[in-house]
């Protein structure tokens, strides 16, 4: 069985447990194993935006260094933020010798940026293949109109992330179609959810996340999938407000793409962590006869 080194990140060990477990289960069903790094620490949760803030690169550099030492040649993530931070840090250390030497000074070990940082979605698309996933589906999610929400971190900055077209991405839609869903395209699928402002300015998060949800619901989405724990949290959490403010708006559950994948592959609903979601997806499944 293909083994892929896996970096879970902090959130997936705590509030986003469902993203982790559903991904592992699905991987097993699709013929690969996620091998968690033996030693890992927090990725830093934000890529430093000032060019001389190199201390912010040390945490992710350590993660990458460990991954290299463990010998995988690549490391896979699930969380969009971890993916963003690790991939961009890796690039800096690979291309900028000066910064690399400074970071080496901090962490007292040299890492050259030689491993590849990949996302679970890339594994599904490029290594497993959506066709193969389609064949493996045991419980086709027929009739479910699902919208893929990408947010910012998975796609941007485009030149550094390069996973998909940052303006009109399609990778998750490809997966949704393979699972039997009807993929709903909506204008705000790559807009910001409000991100860290969840801590300080909930009003902004409510407005931004509300825009996303209204935009999706307006196009007939009955379900949103995402790959980012923070997006998932913000979209779910702000929905109450959206319901209050928007006449005619009906609730739309927000799940991780891996949870939907697990469902379609016929996994036990309990191990997928669906119960942890704020808005239950199961009535929708029932109403569609899935």
């Amino acid at each position: 069985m293909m083994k892929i080194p896996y970096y879970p990140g902090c959130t997936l060990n705590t509030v986003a447990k469902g993203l982790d477990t559903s991904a592992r289960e699905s991987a097993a069903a699709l013929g690969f194993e996620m091998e968690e790094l033996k030693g890992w620490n927090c990725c830093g949760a934000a890529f430093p935006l000032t060019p001389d803030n190199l201390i912010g690169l040390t945490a992710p550099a350590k993660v990458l260094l460990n991954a290299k030492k463990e010998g995988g040649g690549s490391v896979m993530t699930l969380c969009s933020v971890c993916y963003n931070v690790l991939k961009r840090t890796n690039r800096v250390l690979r291309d900028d010798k000066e910064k690399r030497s400074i970071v080496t000074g901090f962490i007292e070990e040299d890492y050259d940026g030689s491993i590849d940082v990949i996302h679970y979605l890339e594994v599904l698309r490029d290594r497993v293949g959506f066709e193969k996933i389609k064949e493996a589906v045991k419980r086709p999610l027929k009739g479910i109109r699902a919208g893929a929400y990408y947010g910012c971190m998975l796609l941007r900055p485009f030149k550094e992330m390069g996973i998909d077209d940052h303006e009109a991405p399609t990778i998750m839609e490809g997966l949704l179609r393979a699972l039997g869903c009807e993929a709903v395209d909506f204008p705000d699928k790559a807009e910001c959810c409000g991100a860290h402002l969840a801590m300080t300015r909930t009003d902004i998060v409510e407005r931004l996340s509300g825009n996303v949800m209204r935009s999706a619901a307006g196009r007939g989405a009955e379900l949103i999938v995402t790959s980012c724990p923070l997006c998932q949290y913000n979209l779910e959490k702000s929905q109450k407000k959206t319901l209050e403010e928007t006449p005619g708006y009906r609730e739309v559950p927000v799940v991780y793409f891996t949870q939907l994948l697990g469902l379609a592959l016929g996994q036990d609903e309990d191990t997928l962590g669906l119960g942890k979601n704020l808005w239950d997806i199961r009535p929708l499944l029932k109403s569609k006869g899935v």
Partner: protein
Amino acid sequence: MARIGVFVCQCGNNIEGTVDTKKVAEEAQKLPGVVYSRNYKFMCSSPGQEMLKEAIKKHRLDGVLVSACSPHMHEKTFRKASDAAGLNPFRCEMANIREQCSWVHHDRTKKTGTVKGNDLTRMAIERLKRNRPLKKINIPVTRRALVIGGGIAGIQAALDIAEGGREVILVEREPSIGGNMARLSETFPTMDCSQCILTPKMVEVELNEKIKLYAYSEVEKVDGYIGNFTVRIRRKAKYVDEDLCTGCGECIEKCPFKAGSEFELGLTSRKVIYTPFPQSVPNIPVIDAPNCPKFQKDKCGACAVVCGPKAIDFKQKDTVVEEKVGAVVVATGYQMMPNERFGEYGYGRFKDVISGMQFERLASSSGPTGGEIRRPSDGKVPETVVFIQCVGSRDEAKGVSYCSKVCCMYTAKHTMLFRHKVKSGQAYVFYMDIRAGGKRYEEFVRKAIEKDGAMYLRGRVSRVYEKDGKVVVCGADTLSNSQVEIEADMVVLATAVVSRKGSDGLARTIGIGSDRHGFYNEYHPKLKPVETVNAGIYLAGACMGPMDIPESVNMGSAAAGKVLGLFSSEEMAREPIVANVNERVCNACWDCVVACPYSAIERFTVKNGQGDVMGMHAKVNEGVCQGCGVCVAACRSKAIDLAGYTDEQVFAAINAF
């Protein structure tokens, strides 16, 4: 023994101030081979020159050294004087004891200057002794020009050259000449219709007996050098016999099949046998074989049935013709950057997001809507149109770094055309800066804003999406510091002007340079704007960079002027500072061939009378060689030397150090 005359100039006090010229002359006199030496107040004055001429005759001098100012200043003067006195002008040399000696060493005791003046003079004399007389090289000129590209720049160049009485071969890749200008509706800032001013010129090309037009053809190869080019042109099969076709159009009428029209940029379709547009020159249709059932499944053939003169020939093949010309004008034009790169603007995803060039067709009275502004998705007349400028231009991250120059103007024109045709319509323009430098350009933009009510918003667009049959444009208005959302019926993108696809390939074929954007390089951006590094090849129009119609026409005429200047005599003379190969020493390693920046060295095969190959050696084409000497230093067997700068001369100067 050489008979050298040395003339040391005082240049008033310019040299004499810090160099003892008398002493320099005396020192020179002591050198072997120097038979005459003196100093003089002003060597470049008439008496000075006369003195030089007399000395040449009187002392039978076979070489003259003028120790004076920089050769960049007066070498020509003294060589001319020598020539007049019967001495080969290349046997006259200069030592620079002013700019590089007296003026930079301010020692008033004259000690420093005199020592250095002596050294420089001595080195120059040793160099001069080994200087061979050289003859100016004359090369014949074929007085016929090739113009590549039949857009407005190429048309102008061709017409002007023909007007000057010389033959022109005009090669156009498409079935008709006219280029991008033929697509335009009206032109800024005068608002005259593009077709109305272009069509007469196209007809002129067709009627001019001096112009041979090869439409639907491409230049495959350009060999040779200034005055003597051989050009290979591929004439693509039209499947219509040009000599028989009368251009009646019956075949087009009866053809039952259609394909997307290139000329209309996909806004409508054309027949499979077609001319790009009704006023095409030549007015001879071509068959689009990949889309024609006759070629694909051997069905139909309706065109052949209806053709009166039996001009349809399904068996026609590409032909290759060779032409000899003396000069080439490259006027291959530009294209618009593919909009698909800009996902945030939704081009290709949303039908009502179109390019500026497509808008030209919508506004053109000969276009798919007959000049009515109707949006592509449902044919509705749009009430609100958003124009987005700088799509790709001035955008290093996703597009090109330069300004496309014409978009500000044509966008202003579009807003006016739109307002004139849709009286209740409102145009919005997102812009970065308005660049309207040009005669009556600024006034034109002001008119669009003030008279025709275009709403200009300074800011960029972040996103475009479809909503209930509208196209919603989200952007920033930086002047009011607010975010705006406009529900538009149609969006027009002012996409960047970029070089034609494959332009670098053509650059290699004809041996000219192109920049990182694929635009061709002029020899000098200010002083030689239509010449290229390859002598005899000239540039015109937007193949050099974004350019509007007046500028393209200027360039076309300028290139034609250069060509006619070159064609003014049957031969042209050039400086004889060229490399030459000692055939017996050359071991045919071809290092020189690779090193030459001008491709002036060829691999020459030596054959005997029976035609047996006896060997190979490098051979310098004197017409192409520019005399840089890179090949000389590259040659391992020392088989190449550079006239005027031979190894022998340089070593002699070093030895005299």
